[in-house]
């Protein structure tokens, strides 16, 4: 019961703030509402028993991505009014409708399994660590490839901003 109430509250908060992000003219306020959307999603992770994921959601999305987003907004002109006219309005509409259609198709095609209610929720951190870093689980190679990709991105950023 309590879980259901918190789910619907968080879901309403997430959808409401996501809509506001799209509809608001003021870019800075839109970014702040995006942060509240991230928080609501972290709350949804908590209701699902994904403790580690919820914390990482706050840490990465709120603590890092949103802060960089706000920094970028501070460097833009006329952030309070947004861009009044865009030539890409029709193209953007088509792309977003296509994306929405694809997501609905995937959503409908996925067989959603409901977990057994009797399963006791356990802390996920140790399990995640073991899955990512033991050879038997088969996730070591993707993990290492992702690490190398991030390293390459960091090096690329350094090369780009380096003075001649």
């Amino acid at each position, binding site marked *: 019961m309590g879980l259901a109430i918190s789910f619907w509250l968080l879901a309403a908060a997430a959808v409401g703030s996501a809509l506001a992000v799209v509809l608001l003219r003021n870019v800075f306020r839109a970014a702040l509402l995006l942060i509240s959307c991230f928080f609501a999603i972290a709350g949804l992770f908590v209701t699902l028993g994904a403790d*580690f994921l919820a*914390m990482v959601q706050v840490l990465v999305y709120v*603590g890092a991505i949103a802060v960089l987003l706000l920094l970028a907004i501070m460097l833009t002109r006329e952030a309070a009014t947004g861009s009044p006219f865009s030539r890409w309005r029709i193209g953007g509409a088509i792309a977003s409708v296509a994306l929405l259609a694809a997501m609905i198709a995937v959503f409908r095609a996925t067989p959603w399994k409901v977990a057994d209610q009797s399963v006791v929720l356990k802390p996920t951190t140790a399990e995640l660590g073991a899955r990512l870093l033991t050879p038997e689980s088969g996730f070591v190679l993707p993990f290492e490839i992702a690490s190398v990709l991030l390293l390459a991105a960091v090096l690329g950023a350094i090369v780009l901003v380096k003075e001649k």
Partner: protein
Amino acid sequence: MDWLRWIIFVVIILAFALSFVMAFILLERRIVGKFQLRPGPNRVGPMGMLQPVADAVKILLKEDITPAKGDRWVHRLAPIVAFAPALLVFAVVPFQGKGPGLGFSLDQPAALADLNVGVLYIVAVSSISVIGMIMAGWASNNKYSLLGAMRAIAQMVSYEVPLVLSIVGIVIASGSLSLNSIVEAQSIPFILLQPLGFLIYFLGATAEINRAPFDLLEAESEIVASYHTEYSGMRFAMFFLGEYAYALGVSAIVSVLFLGGYKFPFGLLPQSFIWFLAKIFLVFFLMLWVRSTLPRVRIDQMMAFAWKFLLPLSLVNLLLVAAEGVSTIGFGWAAVGINVILAIAFVVIWANRFYRVKGVTVG
């Protein structure tokens, strides 16, 4: 019964945080006064003890001003966003452990929630406060406020990296992300086992909560009062109290992670929350000592210090701890000896090398 326990703990934490913040404000003014060979505030009440109360009353009576051309709602919300995370941190801090203690015994750890991901929770929550500063800087419609917010972002992003890397060393040594288990694991306090990690964490945390010598955000001589230039009355007080609440939070986290929390050193006396509170005061005194000793650094010096000094050292610390964990040395007294010697050597060597880099000096 769980509900009752949570309500009681919320009340305890609020009372603890607010009374300690008041005490810290007074202590800071008195102790810095002593460092500067002057008495400090000593007129209101016995030994000036009612000074924070007088300040609070004065500030509550002041007018609450919002800039006419600012963003009114964001301006109003900003102090709350900046202050709330400081209190949230205490939700996972254990005040006393399970079992017999000094005077009384507990059947479970005395913390609001002993989360399995406690360390991650602290790192995640403390990264929120910068958003409050950015909101304040933006909504004030003042160039100094905006510059202060920019500095806040640069500082936070830089110092979070070594800070988190130094905590990873603690997590490796204790094998847990829960703060209570980390305290339990400290038969030898981690400050002895990982002196380098303590140094990095302390410096990084000092920078992250904008205390001197890293208080560039509030460099009065450069940018007035930074992001809270346009604030007055209670909203200014919330930023001010928030700063001390963060100082309290960092003192508590340092006590838990490195000084053994509620345990008496080496178990000579039974565990008690009294030792924990004493350690909080000790760490806060250390901060005051640093503040009254060192001059403020420049912005480029501060960035260089984070990226070129703290980051390499924190990677070295991580490698060292991980190597000891997988080798036969383990985390006993042998590791203490090795780590203390290596920590001194690394700091001295790296500081010397750093000093000679052309064009960049950090002193």
